[in-house]
């Protein structure tokens, strides 16, 4: 290039200042990338990136089992141990629990799943309408928590049921989108979410499963 092609310092400085970019919103963009990749995948392949490591799945299963066992066990087995008692020897109820059939052991997961599905239904029902202002940070945080639970449940025995697994996979997609929602004024994102909800009939299926589990538990 010849000297004739050079530009003066003032123009050079102005060029450098042309459309000065802000700090890139890396986290926000990453959430959007995850959600879009998830949405683009066939249902059966939606978990490649969201896959929970085996150790975490096992730990989650343990936590879910222990947590819900606190109120699942007294219902199923007589003679519950006092809540504050530390029993070194396995109690009768625990020994009984260890020989429960596989089908019976699924019940605690149903309780956990029921609670999770109820919370998810509430969240999705409260999805902000277009133009209703900023999405509450707590709303997004709750969506992220539920998204994590969805992934844990998919790797738990609750994910063995084909219908429930399909529903959890759809909820994983929707919750990932909700977690990445920045503003209720973001029409495209809201359209994408409501479109996904309608297309896959998510809310009626969700409510139906919640009702089934509730009635079965009565």
């Amino acid at each position, binding site marked *: *290039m*010849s000297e004739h*092609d*050079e*530009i003066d310092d*003032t*123009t*050079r*400085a*102005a*060029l*450098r*200042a*042309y*459309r*000065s*970019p*802000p700090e*890139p*919103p*890396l986290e*926000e*963009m*990453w959430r*959007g*990338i995850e959600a*879009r*990749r998830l949405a*683009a995948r066939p249902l059966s392949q939606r978990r*490649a*990136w*969201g*896959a929970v490591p085996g150790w975490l799945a096992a730990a989650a299963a343990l936590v879910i089992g222990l947590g819900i066992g606190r109120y699942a066990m007294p219902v199923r087995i007589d003679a519950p141990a006092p809540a504050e008692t530390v029993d070194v020897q396995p109690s009768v109820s625990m020994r009984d629990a260890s020989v429960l059939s596989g089908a019976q052991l699924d019940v605690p997961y149903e309780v956990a799943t029921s609670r999770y599905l109820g919370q998810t239904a509430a969240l999705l029902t409260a999805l902000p309408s277009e133009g209703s202002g900023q999405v509450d940070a707590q709303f997004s945080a709750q969506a992220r928590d539920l998204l994590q639970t969805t992934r844990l449940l998919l790797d738990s025995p609750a994910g063995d049921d084909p219908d429930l697994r399909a529903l959890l996979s759809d909820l994983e997609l929707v919750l990932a989108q909700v977690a990445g929602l920045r503003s209720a004024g973001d029409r495209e994102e809201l359209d994408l979410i409501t479109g996904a909800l309608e297309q896959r009939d998510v809310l009626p299926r969700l409510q139906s499963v919640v009702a089934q589990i509730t009635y079965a538990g009565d």
Partner: protein
Amino acid sequence: MERTAIALEAAGALDEPVRIERVLAGDAKAARELYDAHAPRVYRLIFRLAGDPDLAQELTQETFVRAFSRLGDFRGDAALSTWLHRIAISVSLNGIRKIKRFHEREAPLEQAESIGIRLSGIDPDLRDKLAHAIEALPDALRVTLVMHDVEGYTHGEIAAALEVPEGTCKTRLSAARAKIRQALAPFRKE
């Protein structure tokens, strides 16, 4: 600062083939590392081309969604950053053309930019004329000018990203600068 970023990127490039393999195997952590290594620079370039934060965000996301979905096709003939920039430029130019409302967003953006320009001591009139002159350039000249004179890419990097010889790149830059000088000529005489 750009050069530092490039040097850091080069240091990390040694691990890049391994990282790519891990991404292809479904490793989310590797995907995030790859994104973190390249997204800031890609976003900067896209923002300079798009001129709108929301649009730049959307186009950056689209760039990485495409890149990850096509990562299996990446042969390693060029650096990953070059390959990513190729996608970013294609996505940006197509996106900017398609999104008509982009122009509607320019007005508030211009106002926002003028604040920064005033702070940096550049004459707002010069800034406006320059912005219009850049936006009036054909895509090939505009991208070359923005990459070289605005973002500080080398001719080699630009040529690789645009898949043209370096000579073509230099010719385009020369033509772009000539148009800029021409557009600013009346202003310079004042």
